[in-house]
């Protein structure tokens, strides 16, 4: 089975501020089957997300698999507070790309 990037399997991959000190990522799937297929590979986990962004796993604030929403949610601590010197994304809404490129060993 050839691994495929998450963007080919998910319906929505997005990032957004959750307050000034966090960026939260939502991965949503079209249906339960796709969600479970990706969830069950275990390819999306705190360590793989940390690696995709080159951060320490301690910077992952939380990780949830949300069966009722067919969704996976990961939140990271911002490297710097929203709007402080050097911040390049005030709404945190353009941080999803490394996540959507993670390879998933599912068809």
């Amino acid at each position: 089975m050839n691994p495929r990037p998450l963007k080919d399997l998910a319906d929505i991959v997005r990032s957004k501020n959750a307050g000034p000190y966090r960026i939260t990522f939502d991965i949503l799937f079209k249906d339960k089957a796709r969600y479970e297929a990706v969830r069950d590979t275990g390819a999306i986990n705190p360590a793989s997300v940390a690696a995709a962004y080159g951060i320490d796993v301690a910077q992952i604030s939380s990780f949830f698999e949300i069966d009722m929403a067919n969704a996976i949610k990961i939140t990271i601590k911002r490297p710097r507070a929203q709007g402080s010197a050097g911040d390049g994304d005030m709404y945190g809404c353009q941080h999803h790309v490394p996540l959507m490129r993670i390879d998933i060993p599912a068809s």
Partner: protein
Amino acid sequence: MTAITVLTPTGTLGYGFGDEALARGMSLGPAVIAVDAGSTDPGPHYLGSGKPLVSDVSIKRELTALIRAGREAGIPVIVGSAGGAGSGVQVERTARLVREIAEEQGLGFRLATIRSDIPIERAKQAVAAGEIIDFEAGSALTSELLDETVMLVAQMGHEPICAALDGGAEVIIAGRACDDSVIASFPIWRGADPALAIHMGKILECGAFSAEPFAMDVMLGTLHADNFVLEPGSTARRASVKSVAAHSLYERENPFKQSGPGHEIDLSACSFEQIGERQVRVRGAKLTETAEYYVKLEGAKLAGYRSIAIAGIRCPTTVKALDAILADVRQKALVYFAPAPVTITFHVYGRDGVMKELERETTPQREVGLVIEVTAADQELAHAACHQISGAMLHYHYPGVINTSGNLAFPYSPSDIDLGPVYEFSAYHLMKVASPNELFPVSFEDL
């Protein structure tokens, strides 16, 4: 319990809604119009400066439509986090627009304004009493940090808004309020289950962002005894289990437990049920009141004054040498202006302008967009340093230079632009209060 319908016209007051969607929504017999007007999301500037997030033109236009609709139906209009950050000057600015609307439209009603500014001394007492805990800032709130804070607000819960309703308010302009409380206040005031009302508020506060196709538009929620039903105002949209469930995750960290003023909501047993094509029924939120009542503080401090320069770089030899050039001009500027501190940031678009150190891709760039940003203690110094850097880069000689006439393509003259004061968040902490209404005085006036 009779059903209570809340109409939320849009996700942020001033960001628009469809006239037909509002008319259709009003035909469904809502008991209240409630809308959020702000957030920390646009950044600390609006809190620190007191400037409005949305123009007076847009706020007045939308409030005129909402107040007219509210008066025609005889239902209240509630606005939370007025002006963007809900500070006193922003509440007053919005209230002034309401007075103009009353006069111009020939409408009479009772206006309530609710302040949410927290006196610095009040917060200092809480620091001294050990009644402040960090929320997510990562460090303690200190007396020194409070001295630097130019504006401090707290998020009110539904209680101060209920107090305004108790006083007969027909239009309520509230300062900083927890988004869901703005929507939940009227149903709670009328006796609805706070757990369901607050959960409904969490989804409704973004307007039709919980519908598909999503938009800044009208959304309605109807509370029943043990569930609530969501429906967009416009028949061109629908609420689906997917759109509502997805929105339940939006902009918040924990999908199962969400804290608000004086309470925690448990959403782990929630269920979503499709009703027909366009409605979704939601059940299952549970609320626990916290032993102590904490409110979230939001503070901003002045971080200095900012100037920027924007430039394009097209030459491949310059792009290749860019890191070394940036490091050198930065170092020279720091030395040149020492001992005055200047904070220099290079946003290198096409490379890592958006994500900085989180960027892992190293695709070669054909063209680079550069924003030189300098923050200093005053505007003159920021401008001087920004121009020193842009000038140094323009005529910088580096090994292998092929074009000796200039390294930066400026789209503007002047190349250096003053952006004024810069604010940073200085407080994002929880403070214990004696009562839910203690910090949020309500004033009434009959227009």
